[in-house]
């Protein structure tokens, strides 16, 4: 196609990270173009739950990033025109053994040391905030700052607001090549024509590896499948977002919290539950490396259902009306990949969020906008450098 476009910044990917980046860039007055191969939230951002969970983050930089991100959500609620269904509901992690309780206690201590308030609850204390749990449940940890959001509305809201501020969104537009001359990004070839731009943010999620190849950089992002069950809508009955301790285990590869069952291990099973604003329960989830296959499987549906009933037996009479699977852009250590790449000026990475994309989107957008426009960030993002893997 002959059309030649130009933009100050091009953001590749119309998921939550791309939308957030575009939003914060636009707030700083930048001219932004979002290039999206399909449509907004068509990848992992549209096929995940709405957990904004702080207590599940890795200690250290990851947690700090998440805590900074959490602070930004209330401002988004104010600023975005779409109802993002943000609910500061607090989050629970439930333990099903004394060993797990011990781990949760240790984590709570460590998290508190880093400034995140987390309370350990005995079985009887737990009863006060979640009256009915499975017999196996021995207690849990509660983080009042954990919250919930509608990931699709969030993505849509950010992108829409960016658009209002002048951003252009190219839908159904595939990036075919990135032209680099004199060590600097110059042009992006897309299925809709060429775009002249000296700054490109790669927020392409599981497509990041392919984008990286265009500038001969290996971006180690692999798709990790997460399956979720959706139930019929109900009156609000689940006050918090809830996860099982094994979710922490499979997420952070914490030996002490991995599931005992072989099948569950294979699926990377970890219990999560939330009730959305529309009333549906979202029950998760798995962590599987199966390439780009986003089908749901009978085994996982069965395993997720069975696992959910261990924690919340009273939901057994709910109808499951759908299942879905998202492909998380997974990095080798499960932490995001943020920052520049060596030898190619004007290319920025905002990917590899590994299932924390929704939670980390606002802060990612904010620091990326700083990085792109000022060359430096208000928060140290060096722990998330691409070069930590080498």
């Amino acid at each position, binding site marked *: 196609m002959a059309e030649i476009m130009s933009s100050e910044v091009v953001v590749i990917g119309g998921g939550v990270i791309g939308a957030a980046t575009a939003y914060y860039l636009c707030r700083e007055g930048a001219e932004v173009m979002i290039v999206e191969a399909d449509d907004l939230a068509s990848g992992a951002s549209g096929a995940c739950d709405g957990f904004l969970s702080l207590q599940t983050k890795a200690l250290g930089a990851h947690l700090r990033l998440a805590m900074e991100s959490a602070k930004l959500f209330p401002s988004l609620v104010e600023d975005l025109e779409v109802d993002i269904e943000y609910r500061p509901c607090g989050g629970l992690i439930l333990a099903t053994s004394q060993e797990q309780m011990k781990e949760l206690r240790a984590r709570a201590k460590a998290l508190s040391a880093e400034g995140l308030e987390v309370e350990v609850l005995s079985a009887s204390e737990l009863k006060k905030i979640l009256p009915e749990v*499975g*017999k*196996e449940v021995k207690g849990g940890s509660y983080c009042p700052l954990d919250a919930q959001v509608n990931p699709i509305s969030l993505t849509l809201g950010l992108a829409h607001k960016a658009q209002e501020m002048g951003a252009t969104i190219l839908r159904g537009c595939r990036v075919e090549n990135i032209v680099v001359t004199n060590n600097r990004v110059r042009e992006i070839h897309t299925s809709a024509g060429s775009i002249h731009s000296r700054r490109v943010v790669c927020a392409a999620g599981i497509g990041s590896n392919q984008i990286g190849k265009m500038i001969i950089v290996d971006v180690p992002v692999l798709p990790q499948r997460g399956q979720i069950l959706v139930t019929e809508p109900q009156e609000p009955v689940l006050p918090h977002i809830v996860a099982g301790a094994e979710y922490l285990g499979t997420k952070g590869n914490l030996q002490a919290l991995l599931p005992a*069952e072989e*099948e569950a291990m294979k699926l990377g099973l970890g219990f999560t539950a939330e009730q959305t604003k529309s009333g549906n329960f979202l029950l998760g989830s798995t962590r599987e490396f199966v390439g780009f296959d986003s*089908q*749901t*499987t*009978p*085994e996982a*549906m*069965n395993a997720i259902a*069975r696992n959910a*009933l*261990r924690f919340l037996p009273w939901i057994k009479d709910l109808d499951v009306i759908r299942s879905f699977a998202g492909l998380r852009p997974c990095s080798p250590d499960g932490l995001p990949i943020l920052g520049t790449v060596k030898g190619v000026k004007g290319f920025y990475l905002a990917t590899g969020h590994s299932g924390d994309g929704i939670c980390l989107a606002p802060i990612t957008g904010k620091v990326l906008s700083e990085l792109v426009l000022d060359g430096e960030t208000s928060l140290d993002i060096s722990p998330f450098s691409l070069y930590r893997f080498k």
Partner: protein
Amino acid sequence: MDTGQEGRMRLPEESCTLVAVGAGPAGLCAAREAAACGVRTTVLDENDKGGGQLIKQIHRFFGSREHGAGKRGFEIALELAEDCANAGAEIRLNHRVLGFFEDGRLLVEGDFIYVLEAKAVVLATGALERSFPFPGWTLPGVMGAGAAQTLVNVHGVLPGKRAVLVGSGNVGLIVAYQLLQAGMEVVGILEVEDRVGGYEVHESRVRREGVPIYLRHRLLAVEGLEGVEAVLAKDLEKGTVKRFHADTLCLAVGMIPQAELASMRGCRMVFVRELGGFIPWHDGDMRTDRPGVYVAGDAAGVEEASIAMDEGRLAGVAALEDLGALSPNEARKRKEELKRRLNLLRGGAAGRPRAMAKERLAAGWRHR
């Protein structure tokens, strides 16, 4: 069964040679062919009776002897189910297929959930009544014409006292007639076109009972508080609006093929207007583009029950051929005979566009 906590219960697995999903005319006929040939055959259906939507058809059917023509629909349903069972197929009623995965496995809910694997799967999942939104369409008392038919003919319960029907195709005409048979008053049939859509013989039947057919009348809205109280329609000739006092509105505006399982399985889906919408692509023998997956009946394009029967038989024969249970020669012979019959059934003015669509499908179906 185990209560799940300690029970490391996995999904039970089962296998069989041929599975037909749907115990309507297509599924039963496909299964009968297979079972009669000695192949281990299972039919799954979510209803508590076999026969599909034939069970609510109390009128005598078109077709020829092979299709039970001249008999009433429910009578044909009983015979098909009996034939199928006598041939040795196992008909599992109250079994819901929840999923058909790309690896070919079916997830089924009967008394418990299980995984079913089969070398051949015939999807005969039927169709759904089409509807469209308009003001008041969600009021109780607005329903599919087939829904009203189910209520009166299967359960012997009237949906109301006075009905308006929308659509003068064969379904609209027949259902209007059947509501009258059960003792309901039919206030009128609304038709947006300038002529009746169904056969003259069906039109005549309702007209003889004094039911007016309002041509060039568009349904505007339904009024009512917690149920239908009146139906508004616009006379497109005069530009005036009529209000009909009725407590029931039946929509007879076509059917949509239901082939969601084919779509889930990864079958190529094509949009064929003449056949009601998206259907799995299939060749002249009812094979989809996925090995071992066949489709028949309304799920392969909305047509008559008699066609569903022969398509089911055709799918059964094709599956038998692919399974090696039938010699190529024998299969060819049977397929030719069935195709000859199908051609005859699609011979009239009403059938020709469908016949042509089916031919285009068999020839590969490319975008025009």
